[in-house]
């Protein structure tokens, strides 16, 4: 079920909300939680029922592992056995992720190196596996570190499966969501949060259906086309994709945050204004923030700690390795590894530049940052190496200049204007204090327009669903 479908907006969400708040209204909290869990499972199973057994067993297994870790930590003075259980738990998660997502990639790469024949098998990748695997690994690590007190299975299941963040994030930490489930004040419907939720939901929907899906037309024409591409078409396609990805994914995140607010639950911000960034460090501080946080805390820091001595050079190596892994997390393909590597290099260069304190004009800094990000997204978006080659030759070694498609140029300018001059959703949330007349009008109009524009032709999937 897509957030931008009539089925979700007009049927699933209202039914889930009404059920949840009616049960809370009658102080039937456990039933309300069970209802939320049931709804999330229906939401997940709607895509493909065959994913469900794996998803449920993953939740169950990780919960059992967390319980064992807590028991061992309580009983043993030294944490060796708990550490061993943690290792097995993380390995199991990674083995399943690796099996579903990376086995074909590893075996085909091996066949290229060692020369054996290999036919890729058709594996059904369980939806959202990358997202719920990360969340559960973090939960296990934090349990071992004593950062997550024991929670009931019901709360843990609701935390992992809570449908607003389930499919494509934001990647929520247990200590951000589980405590909110216990807060008495949050068990009463709050109109202020409700209107704010509707506003974010509408903004997200508008970003997706009005902007991202429109930009997709020219991005697809460029990346999925055949034959030579002109200089202008190649740049239009690459810029359109960079903008499409931002509006698509940040739109999804806004919707997730907005929908969660309808349940009185605050999810972390996932995007600020990444395309206003004037360096790569700045970019990653405002792009997919919850993933950046995971990369920093659970990849970069452990890698750095594994070095005997910590210095600038080693921290840069840790940055490169962490970004390579982050690239691979996005997909099992060398193009994603190059995407990660490019961002790793960008961060390293940025750190060196910062260390040297060499000034650079702001406009040039912005241009360089966007150029590098845009270039990396060519590898990210291209469906195959032929497309990469075609796009790069069009962008840098074109046969012809071509003429601009005015619709695309108009859309790019409009989108850039939005990126630069419209407040991001975090700022909107800060400005939104009380749902007075102005906010009711803004939210009502946005909601009406967003619902009116729903499922234009067919609801398109969000780009990050495949990760």
């Amino acid at each position: 079920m897509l957030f931008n479908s009539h089925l979700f907006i007009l049927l699933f969400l209202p039914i889930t909300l009404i059920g949840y708040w009616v049960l809370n209204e009658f102080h039937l909290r456990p039933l309300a939680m069970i209802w939320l869990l049931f709804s999330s499972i229906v939401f997940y199973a709607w895509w493909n029922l065959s994913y469900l057994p794996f998803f449920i067993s993953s939740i169950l297994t990780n919960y059992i592992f967390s319980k064992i870790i807590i028991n061992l930590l309580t009983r043993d003075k030294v944490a060796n056995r708990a550490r061993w259980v943690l290792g097995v738990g993380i390995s199991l998660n990674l083995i399943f992720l690796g099996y579903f997502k990376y086995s074909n990639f590893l075996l085909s790469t091996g066949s290229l190196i060692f020369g054996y024949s290999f036919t890729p098998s058709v594996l059904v990748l369980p939806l959202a596996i990358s997202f719920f695997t990360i969340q559960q690994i973090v939960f296990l690590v934090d349990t071992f570190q004593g950062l997550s007190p024991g929670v009931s299975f019901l709360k843990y299941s609701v935390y992992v499966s809570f449908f607003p963040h389930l499919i494509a994030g934001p990647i929520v930490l247990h200590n951000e969501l589980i405590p909110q489930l216990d807060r008495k004040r949050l068990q009463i419907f709050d109109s202020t949060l409700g209107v704010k939720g509707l506003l974010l939901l509408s903004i997200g929907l508008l970003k997706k259906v009005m902007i991202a899906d429109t930009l997709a037309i020219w991005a697809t024409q460029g990346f999925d086309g055949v034959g030579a591409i002109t200089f202008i078409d190649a740049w239009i396609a690459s810029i359109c994709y960079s903008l499409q990805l931002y509006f698509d994914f940040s739109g999804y995140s806004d919707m997730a945050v907005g929908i969660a607010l309808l349940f009185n639950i605050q999810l972390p911000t996932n995007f600020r204004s990444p395309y206003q960034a004037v360096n790569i460090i700045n970019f990653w501080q405002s792009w997919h923030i919850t993933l950046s946080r995971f990369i920093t805390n659970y990849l970069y820091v452990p890698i750095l700690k594994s070095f005997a001595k910590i210095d600038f050079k080693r921290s840069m190596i840790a940055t490169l390795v962490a970004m390579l892994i982050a690239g691979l997390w996005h997909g099992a393909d060398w193009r994603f590894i190059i995407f990660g590597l490019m961002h790793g290099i960008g961060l390293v260069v940025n750190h060196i530049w910062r260390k040297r304190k060499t000034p650079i004009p702001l406009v040039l800094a912005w241009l360089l940052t966007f150029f590098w990000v845009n270039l990396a997204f060519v590898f990210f978006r291209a469906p195959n190496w032929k497309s990469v080659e075609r796009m790069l030759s069009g962008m840098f070694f074109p046969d012809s200049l071509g003429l601009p498609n005015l619709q695309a140029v108009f859309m790019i300018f409009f989108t850039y204007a939005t990126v630069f001059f419209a407040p991001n959703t975090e700022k909107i949330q800060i400005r939104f204090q009380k749902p007075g007349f102005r906010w009711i009008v803004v939210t009502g109009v946005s909601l009406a327009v967003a619902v009116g524009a729903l499922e234009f032709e067919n609801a398109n999937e969000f780009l990050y669903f495949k990760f």
Partner: protein
Amino acid sequence: MQMNFFTLNSKHKYSFLITIVFALGILFAIDFWIHFYIVHKTTSVQFIDNKESKFIHLALQEKNTPFDAIFIGSSYTKNHISTATFAKRGFHVYNLGISGRLLGDFPSMTLAANSQHPKFIILNISIDELFVPPSTKFVHLDDLGPLLASSTDLTTKAEHLWSFMLSLHSLHYYREAVFLQFRDVINRFTPKIKSPPMPTNLISKVNYSDQEQLGIDCDVFKTTIYEKMKVITCTNGDGAQLGYLDHQSPKKAVSFDARKVNQDAISLLNSIINSSKERSQIIVVLQPIWGRIVNVDFSELEAKINAPLLDLTSETFSDHDWCDEAHFNIFGRNLYSNLLADRLTPYLRHFP
């Protein structure tokens, strides 16, 4: 006392509900405006290409002579059938073709046609529609009952019911048209490298402005110009496309097994035929499809349908006769209308 929503003391307590009601109010106002616009724009010599408008247009037609036939179908009907061709043979017909309409839309269209008491109602369908479950993007209230009755499984019934609920919102129906209008405006400013080359290898060398001179047989009230074609809409309900096809038809043979016909589709078609029997006779026409040579046992197919079945799928048209991969141009339209008139004349002449 435990606190709940009703014991909360906040002056913004009902703001959530007010916002929802406000948003729904906007959507309702848009729907009302659309309805008003359609009624306002429809006269006896002007209509919008949708059910609501075309039904009004039909009702406003001169009633001195009853219709011999009303044609029901999609844009294939609207743009392929010339009312003037039938008029030359002394038949008073009306073209109730509406773009994008499918078999699932026919119950309401037949009902609208029946209200004018024509002698015959001609249902124009593509053969493919008999082999897939009947569907329509926007379910009219009069379509819902027959669609539900003809569906054999619960999921399909639920889908029809859901489509009907969505169809209640008029904006849902019109936003594509609004978007296309907006896109066309921007398109006008897009520089063209060169005008599309006239095909050299096969197709008519006559462009659409020449075609216009050659054979529009109705009064035009609206013309839409696209890059390679011109679509005209006539005051009498007809339409036509002017242009040429710039590539050759593949003439692909496609076989259908008449035994594997979709039961829901046949059931819906027969329910339309049966419900109309007392007022008008129904004839089903299987229309030609570009690039296809259809192989099917028509006698077996005819045996399943409770009305005469005219097969025009096997009629071959040359590439000169097509405007695009779906529609005839003015030449094809003239040929097809004459062909159809030949096949229908025995029925229309010998009506009891």
